[in-house]
């Protein structure tokens, strides 16, 4: 198989995930897009591992580790989103601007 096929597929999938992270408003949809980006990286790792015929199979081992870390990340991320939702009543990342750097007088007016 030509190596360009999996590499191009992974690049396009990563870009789609990047668009989702930047454009989505709901925090859970942002988490889904992060999953897409991680999966693009996994596809690259598997393809290069099969191409290089690595004796210690670093690519496939790292793919398994990335899957495990993604599972841990989605668990912690959803717990944080639920906590934010419980405290604020919204999971909209555009409205969570308490730490934003803004003008003092806008704060005073509000």
């Amino acid at each position, binding site marked *: 198989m030509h190596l360009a096929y999996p590499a191009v597929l992974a690049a396009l999938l990563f*870009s789609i995930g990047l668009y989702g992270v930047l454009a989505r408003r*709901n925090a*859970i949809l942002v988490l889904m897009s992060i999953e*897409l980006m991680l999966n693009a990286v996994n596809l690259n790792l598997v393809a290069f591992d099969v191409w290089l015929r690595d004796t210690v199979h670093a690519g*496939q081992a790292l793919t398994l580790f990335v899957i495990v870390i993604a599972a841990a990340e989605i668990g912690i991320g959803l717990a944080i989103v639920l906590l934010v*939702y419980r405290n604020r009543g919204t999971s909209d990342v555009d409205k969570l601007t308490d730490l934003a750097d803004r003008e003092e007088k806008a704060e005073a007016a509000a």
Partner: protein
Amino acid sequence: MSHSGFLSPTGVEITFVLVGIATLGAALITVSTKQLVHAALWLVVALGGLAVEYLLLTAEFIAWVQVLIYVGSVVVLLLFGLMLTKAPIGRSPDADSGNRWAALVVAVASAATLVWLVVDAFRATWINLDGPVQGSTEVTGQFLFQHWVLPFEALSVLLLAALVGAIVLSRKKAEANGTDRKIGAR
């Protein structure tokens, strides 16, 4: 191994490209649909398509792990998250934020750069899929427990830490519940 050119693709390549197109389409719908639950369900299609791609690349064990972990648990977790945050059923017009055009520009620019780069770099590179299978369960078990034992065990500790962290984060406050205060006051 015959190094076939672009004009005479093998069956594996044709299958890979077709499944890849389906995967990309599902991923595009995931990031662009207005219906939040549909996004999670299209994510299943995208991740399942990737599992098929792993199978085509002879990484058999990783394909099944992908089905088990991602399709089986991560998507279910995301659906629970959508339900618990009272995500609207049906179309929600504010699913995309106001900077979606800037996001589109960034994504298209990164896609163009990356695709140009990898096509230029791997123009004449072929994967040899013949010979012994490189990702069967037996091979995976051997390399994982011969060369990667220590990171493997460290990851189990990481998973335990994530589990405890998620429980602590999602626990109700002690003030909210009288019985909780007696047991879990710190």
